[in-house]
């Protein structure tokens, strides 16, 4: 199993600013992922955070808007850049190994005003 700590747990931000979300895992993991959950919706995968190389983004998500860092096997950050109210969502960090349970952080609830 893995314990994931996400910070901040929530934030209210002004439009046009950026927020960096941190994800810390209590053990080394190969794969880390970032998800977005818009109000009343399911989870949508933003990107896979790769250690030592650029993140792999899903269709509809770009690095300029959601830059991701993965400096080591236990830590990653997601930045939401130049925010607008449409970015108000819960952002979740996840880790997993192939064919096993995926673990999730408690999420960061972002409100953009």
């Amino acid at each position, binding site marked *: 199993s893995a314990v994931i700590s996400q910070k901040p747990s929530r934030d209210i931000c002004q439009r046009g600013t950026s927020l960096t979300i941190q994800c810390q895992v209590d053990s080394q993991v190969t794969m880390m992922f970032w998800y977005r959950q818009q109000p009343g919706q399911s*989870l949508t995968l933003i990107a896979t955070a790769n250690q030592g190389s650029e993140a792999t983004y899903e269709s509809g998500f770009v690095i300029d808007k959601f830059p991701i860092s993965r400096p080591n096997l236990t830590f990653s950050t997601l930045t939401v850049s130049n925010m607008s109210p449409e970015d108000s969502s819960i952002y979740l960090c996840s880790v997993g190994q192939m064919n096993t*349970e995926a673990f999730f952080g408690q999420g960061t609830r972002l409100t953009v005003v």
Partner: protein
Amino acid sequence: SQQGEEDPQALSIQEGENATMNCSYKTSINNLQWYRQNSGRGLVHLILIRSNEREKHSGRLRVTLDTSKKSSSLLITASRAADTASYFCATEAPGTYKYIFGTGTRLKVLA
């Protein structure tokens, strides 16, 4: 993007009744997981079923998987008010490690 769809989108039942939710997906999978989420909080893992398995049980939960139909179902027996939550299926495609979520079912259990 969503890998699959769940139905119904919303379900309201009386306490003590059974609740069945269905998940359909589009591509071949390594496994399928079911999660519960209460009021926008964190995800609680319920069951993982691998592609070579057909049925799994955990307490009041029963999950089936039909890879020929690309579908899974989650049955909650003898439901309780505390089961009120959103339920999501998530699939892992072979070689990808990543999970793609279904659209979810909102379950309301009335006391």
